[in-house]
């Protein structure tokens, strides 16, 4: 899941400065789960901005709507009949959602209300950690389901390095050493022999941006078009 956090209110204020009619568009998927940009957070942000505006003597309209997902075009059609009524659209989706919204309504100013952080998992209530950096060649099979690309500070594929310190990382003593985690997990699984294999250097060329992917089943159809 994509994890994001709301931008500081001052930054949002600075972006919307001078506009009187503002539509806040929420996203009901990832950012709703990480409590940054779902329907509830849109309600909160709208209320906050309205109140802040009034306290500072501004008279602006701030309305709200939350779509199921902002990264799928069909869900953005819901805004069609409203978009013209507003000066700007403030999106509380991740960066991908904001961009698709800006592309779909390209005559409108579309602004981001969140900072997108990473793709990760929920550790506990209100707490998330990054687990994958989308390296396009997953090696979790070799590492007991623990990603050295993300968790190891040095992206080592054949770890640990000499700096591993009683299970902690030399780069940041607060963080776990990915390779100690991997060793322990592999030991538990009885697969320590796997660690003797030397991993070839990672092919970073596949990580060239921007990534693009067409599902196998749709390739032919696309060629025919």
């Amino acid at each position, binding site marked *: 899941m994509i994890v994001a956090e709301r931008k500081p*209110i001052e930054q949002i204020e600075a972006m919307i400065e001078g506009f009187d009619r503002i*539509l806040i568009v929420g996203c009901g998927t990832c950012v709703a789960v990480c409590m940054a940009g779902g329907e*509830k957070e849109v*309600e*909160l942000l*709208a*209320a*906050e901005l*309205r*109140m*802040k505006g*009034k*306290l*500072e003597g501004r*008279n*602006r*309209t*701030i*309305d*709200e*709507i*939350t*779509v*199921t997902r902002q990264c799928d075009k*069909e*869900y953005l059609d*819901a805004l069609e009949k*409203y978009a013209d009524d507003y000066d700007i659209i403030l999106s509380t989706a991740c960066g991908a959602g904001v961009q698709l919204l800006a592309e779909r309504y390209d005559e409108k100013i579309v602004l981001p209300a969140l900072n997108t952080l990473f793709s990760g998992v929920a550790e506990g209530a209100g707490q998330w950690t990054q687990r994958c950096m989308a390296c396009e060649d997953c090696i979790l099979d070799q590492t007991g389901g623990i990603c050295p690309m993300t968790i190891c500070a040095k992206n080592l594929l054949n770890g640990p390095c000499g700096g591993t310190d009683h299970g902690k990382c030399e780069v940041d003593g607060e963080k776990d050493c990915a390779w100690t985690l991997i060793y322990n997990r592999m030991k538990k699984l009885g697969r320590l022999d796997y660690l003797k294999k030397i991993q070839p250097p990672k092919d970073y060329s596949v990580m060239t941006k921007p990534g693009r992917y067409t599902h196998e089943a749709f390739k032919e159809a696309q060629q025919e078009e």
Partner: protein
Amino acid sequence: MTQNDTTEPFEPKVVAYCCTYCAYTAGDLAGSMRLEYAPNVRVVQILCTGKIDAVLLLRAFEDGADAVYVAGCAIGDCHFLEGNLRAIQTVAHTKKLLAEIGLEPQRLEFFQIPASAGPLFAQRANEMTERAQKLGPNPLRKTMKQNAGRKLDKAPDQHPPLPQAKHGQLYCR
């Protein structure tokens, strides 16, 4: 409304979200005990303070409340085990939101009022009313009717019909 209504003494409006199992019952008890307390308090009965949401609290202020408090059970006494703990967290977070937008966080509070504490209910009601009196009127009261903002209607998402399955439970609606 007349021009000289500014000279009238300020009567704060205080909203109290009260848990039905404790604070609300304490309010009843205060009544049975014939205790007098500030008439400024508007009590909103809720099933559990765990129901409280930052949006509900902000809305009260947006609609002109001068002070708001949430009253729940003592720690460890929540009928739903941890509703009051969540409410404490929610109120603390909402105080930060208030500070962020420039409204005094002291206008919001969480109190523990057990069901047996009629006098405490009256005391808290007076305390919050006094506090609102000191802080003065909520500046949003003047503008509460303007530009209230709205949630736009959205048609339910259209999904393609599910395939008709020969076995099992799947069928088209």
